């Protein structure tokens, strides 16, 4: 941690994420029980056998939350990795090459950008049919415009750096220039934006599931759980409390880590007004 140079808050955020990942991995080895099995009466408050209560089908909430964390984190992470890969490719090429290619990429990005995020997500889900693939594609399409823009801006800045010019003068091929000089130097931007995209991804997954386009039952995701729990907010508050707290924690932790990462990559001065 120290070597990463992150501040204490970010370390706390990282730790929190780590705990969530362990929690999610727990469900893979069956800790907490079968998330789909009906184990008791419906809508029971927390108690032995169902430590976080039971849901409207009499399933134990604990393994469902564990599975939900896993689904949501995995889905969002894969989506963000995809976004990062696509944004890096298009952003770097557009930023470095400029010209018509740049215009084309930016225009496409602009088009995607003009769709309100959730509308875009709904359309994608409607076209692909609800499910993980739709959630994945939605997150990618929703997060790609901003990241591509920022990567492009960073790539424009990097392409004007003297070391890039030097490499070109040395006769380096385009692929070499991009891979060895431009990419590593926009990686920071990608990493920082990636963390924000991750939190957006989690929110999009939640929103989609809320509208019924997301992850399919009986599989649990945080969005699914919160959507179902929301219905029982008063009658069975434990249904929303568990996944809700976990979701807030996850997004909060990711944001905090993102901020820390950014402060680390782009340290900044401060100044007093007195």
């Amino acid at each position, binding site marked *: 941690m120290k070597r990463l140079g992150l501040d204490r808050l970010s370390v706390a955020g990282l730790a929190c994420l780590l705990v969530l990942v362990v929690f999610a991995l727990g469900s893979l080895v069956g800790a907490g029980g079968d998330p789909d099995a009906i184990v008791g009466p419906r809508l029971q408050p927390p108690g032995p056998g169902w430590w976080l209560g039971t849901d409207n089908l009499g399933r134990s909430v604990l393994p469902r939350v564990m599975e939900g964390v896993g689904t949501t984190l995995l889905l969002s992470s894969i989506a963000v990795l995809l976004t990062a890969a696509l944004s890096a490719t298009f952003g770097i090429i557009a930023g470095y090459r400029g010209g018509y290619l740049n215009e084309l990429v930016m225009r496409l990005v602009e088009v995607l950008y003009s769709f309100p995020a959730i509308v875009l997500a709904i359309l994608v889900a409607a076209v692909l049919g609800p499910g993980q693939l739709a959630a994945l594609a939605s997150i990618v399409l929703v997060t790609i415009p901003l990241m591509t823009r920022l990567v492009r801006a960073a790539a424009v800045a990097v392409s004007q750096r003297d070391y890039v010019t030097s490499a070109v003068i040395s006769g380096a091929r385009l692929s070499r220039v991009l891979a060895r000089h431009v990419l590593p130097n926009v990686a920071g931007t990608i990493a920082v934006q990636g963390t924000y995209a991750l939190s957006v991804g989690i929110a999009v997954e939640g929103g989609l599931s809320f509208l019924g386009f997301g992850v399919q039952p009986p599989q649990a995701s945080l969005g699914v759980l919160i959507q179902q729990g929301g219905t029982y907010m008063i009658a069975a508050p434990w249904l929303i409390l568990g996944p809700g707290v976990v979701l807030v924690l996850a997004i909060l932790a990711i944001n905090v880590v993102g901020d820390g990462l950014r402060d680390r990559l782009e340290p900044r*001065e*401060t*100044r*007093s007004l*007195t």
Partner: protein
Amino acid sequence: MSLLTVRNLVIDYPQTRALDGADLELRQGETLGLVGESGSGKSTLGSAVGRLLPGAAVRAGGEVTVAGEPVFDLPPGKLRHLRKKHLGFVFQDPIASLDPTMRVGAQLRLVLGRGADVGFHLGRVKLDDARVVRAYPHQLSGGMAQRVAIAMAMATAPELLVADEPTAALDSQVREEVLNVVFSLAADAGTSILWLSHDLPAVARRCDRVAVMYGGRVVESGPARQVLGDPAHPYTAALARSAPAAAARGARLEPVPGRPPVLTGASPGCAFAPRCPFAVERCEHERPAPVRIREQDVLCHRAGELAEHMTAGRRPEVSA
């Protein structure tokens, strides 16, 4: 009584000690050139005079007195009053030191108060063009912008003007004009000048006194001609020798060997010792105390013995 006194000032940044016990004195009406390599602490010292340090800076010791007021111990209100009445600042990047979103006239009026004669103040810095008042900073040339900044700094006729490399970003021709404006305005208003600069010949030409900084300390100070012509500190001598402009055609320049120190704490001895051809054991372990050689105050253990040796060195070309 001196207008500005800096005594044993120590300023730390998170990983760097920028000032390591700097001493400086400036009298009313005097012009002082503060020179030294990059990173020697000039800007830090200049900012400390107005307590304008960045947020990361911490004063670890020492004090700064301006017109009898202890700058670092003043409450915010008094500090503002001091800056307003007694101090003026001009910085290196002229365009950046003007608010980019305000017209020049509006910025001047903000400083001078409503209804002030903006034209008069611009006239004093030889900006008679009426368009300047309505222009935004980015529409001015560097020289013009710097003159606006000077007009703002000098509007209140401060007792002390701190100019941090005010011409470093300007073309060589404009430099002279701007410096002329600064020095003549200051002379008229009786303002003392603390001029931070790289440019030894220019300092020699214009300043009454020079202070040379190295490793966060003022290692030599005294009358300009004396310090640059007859340096008493080995570093001053080396610095004077290495200016490219000073080289005669075909002659080889002699750089100061090695590289400047980056301090993380108090330097155990003389910070120049590792690069100094005259260093002895003692220089490494013992912090030198100021000694008086001729008219200079020098921080060097061997200043006394070396005085003769140094004078023998080649003098920098100083055109009067």
